[in-house]
């Protein structure tokens, strides 16, 4: 399988997009806030937008090289693109949508079966549910037997409960495809379930690239910290001591100086009604208490904690949240 290489520069409205990536036979997720340039990168790869400078190649096959004035039209690049709202052709049946890219009838049936939508072949897309549409969009993109797959927020149009099922299914499909796949998402769980590597993009810049657990372990900035589910505190650091904005002093693992952010994950915070002797302690009022997936989410002052039990705690009561110094990750 060929490797997708891209190296792009494109001045957008408010910032310059710069992306340099190599994606092998793996799934690479682009994660970042709205307007970061995620979709734009997919459009560059598909040939729907021409960057100011750059090169895109699949193995030896050069799709774009602005220096050599190479720029293949979208229909001459072997890509499958799944659009955010799916962009199914409303005037064609499901089968005709999948066949649009040139798939033979046999191949169309095979794809529909594989995605469990064989019985919908004759329906128009407007009569389908969100999950069904998503499957049609994936089948249509695969119908061209693309050498590169692009997915723009493939799950964002789905209900919370449809989403879980479709996510697992998509994970299986991506695992068997083994072609370079670029995916855009806002959701860290989607990214970590589906992708081998994640690139965090903000203002057109790739800020951090790594496996999901690497991002969680060492969030490079406040955005990554909140994306991976962390609480964010602010304060002034002097070595391993940080004076938070509310005056509390805490210990952190890595020394730093000046204004810093501190990421603390909810599952590394304990909560009690009496002050624990050791660790970093923040006192505060108890906010919402929510059962969440076998644990309980409690907010104490600025911190959300996920704990096994919350015996004796009530909304509005005073409580203490504590965490170990090594759980306090410093963000410059």
């Amino acid at each position, binding site marked *: 399988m060929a490797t997708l290489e891209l190296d792009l520069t494109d001045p957008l409205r408010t910032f310059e997009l710069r992306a340099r990536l190599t994606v092998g036979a793996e799934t690479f997720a682009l994660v970042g806030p709205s307007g970061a340039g995620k979709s734009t990168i997919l459009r560059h790869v598909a040939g729907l937008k021409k960057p100011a400078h750059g090169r895109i190649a699949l193995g030896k096959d050069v799709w774009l090289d602005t220096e050599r004035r190479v720029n293949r039209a979208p229909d001459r690049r072997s890509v499958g693109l799944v659009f955010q709202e799916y962009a199914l052709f*409303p005037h064609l049946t499901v089968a005709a949508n999948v066949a649009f890219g040139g798939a033979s009838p046999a191949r169309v049936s095979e794809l529909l079966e594989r995605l469990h939508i064989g019985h919908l072949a004759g329906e128009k897309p407007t009569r389908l549910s969100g999950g069904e549409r998503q499957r049609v969009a994936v089948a249509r993109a695969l119908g061209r037997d693309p050498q590169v797959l692009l997915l723009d927020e493939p799950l964002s149009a789905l209900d919370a409960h449809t989403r879980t099922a479709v996510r697992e299914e998509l994970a299986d499909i991506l695992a068997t495809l083994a072609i370079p796949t670029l995916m855009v998402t806002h959701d860290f769980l989607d990214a970590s379930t589906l992708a081998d590597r994640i690139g965090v993009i903000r203002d057109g810049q790739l800020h951090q690239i790594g496996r999901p657990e690497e991002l969680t372990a060492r969030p490079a900035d406040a955005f990554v910290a909140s994306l991976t589910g962390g609480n964010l505190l602010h304060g002034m650091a002097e070595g391993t001591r940080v004076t938070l904005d509310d005056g509390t002093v805490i210990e952190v693992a890595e020394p730093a100086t000046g204004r810093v952010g501190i990421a603390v994950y909810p599952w590394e915070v304990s909560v009690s009604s009496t002050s624990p002797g050791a660790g970093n302690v923040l006192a505060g009022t108890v906010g919402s208490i929510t059962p969440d997936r076998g644990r309980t989410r409690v907010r104490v002052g600025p911190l959300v904690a996920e704990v096994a039990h919350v015996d004796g705690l009530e909304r509005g009561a005073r409580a203490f949240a504590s965490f170990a110094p090594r759980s306090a990750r410093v963000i410059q």
Partner: protein
Amino acid sequence: MRAGFTALLALCLGVVLAFLAIPIVALFTEVPLGDVPGLLRDPVVQDTLKVTLRTNAIANVLILAVGTPAAYFLATRHFKGRALVITLIELPLVLPPAVAGIGLLAAFGAGGLFGGALQDQGIILPFTEWAVVLAVIFVASPFYLRQAISAFESVDPTLHDAARTLGASPARTFLRVALPLAASGLVAGWVLAFARGIGEFGATIVFAGNVRGETGTLTLTIYEQLEANFDVALSIGILLVVLSAVILLSYKLLSWRRSSSTSPTPFARSSSAPA
């Protein structure tokens, strides 16, 4: 007070309907309907009908064939001066037909801007069928173009992108995606243009004259027969009303059937007008 508001709205609607319906109803009371078929068999009317259909058929084919790609270009490409181009296209809409006729004469008439050049080629346009065709195209095409541009614009551009990434060339994308999705808007525009062409008078009389069997269209004949043979004029009038109503209604029924079978949002307010 609040029931009053709805009542006020309904009253306005009633006034509008009454005013628009009365003249049409009155038209039918004026002529002994039984005589209409006989009057329409009059050779003058027959000639006229033939001229009207022939010239309008040619004009409409040209409008659709050249106008559709032009509208697609304007709807999907962005270039400097695009707003100016669109204004130019809409200008004939707001131009009194007589002025349009003078303009056509000034351009293509004998002694006009291109008249001399054309004459050298042995082409004389005024008083010929082609003059009617040009007049109809000039006054009617903006109706089609305007609607066609907005029909193509309202096709979701991501569908266009989707077709391209699925390997369709620009031409195939146009034929397989843009055209079918814009179809109902195009037909709506064409209905208007067709109707405008059939009813065309001012530019035709000035530019093409009223030559029986050549440039004498239904509308010109109505004016001509208004004094001479009022019943013939009325019969043609009724023929045109019925024709117009049939075209409008069949278009409505068509688009209604389409939309009710594929409408994505069952509770979307049903669109009234071919907007």
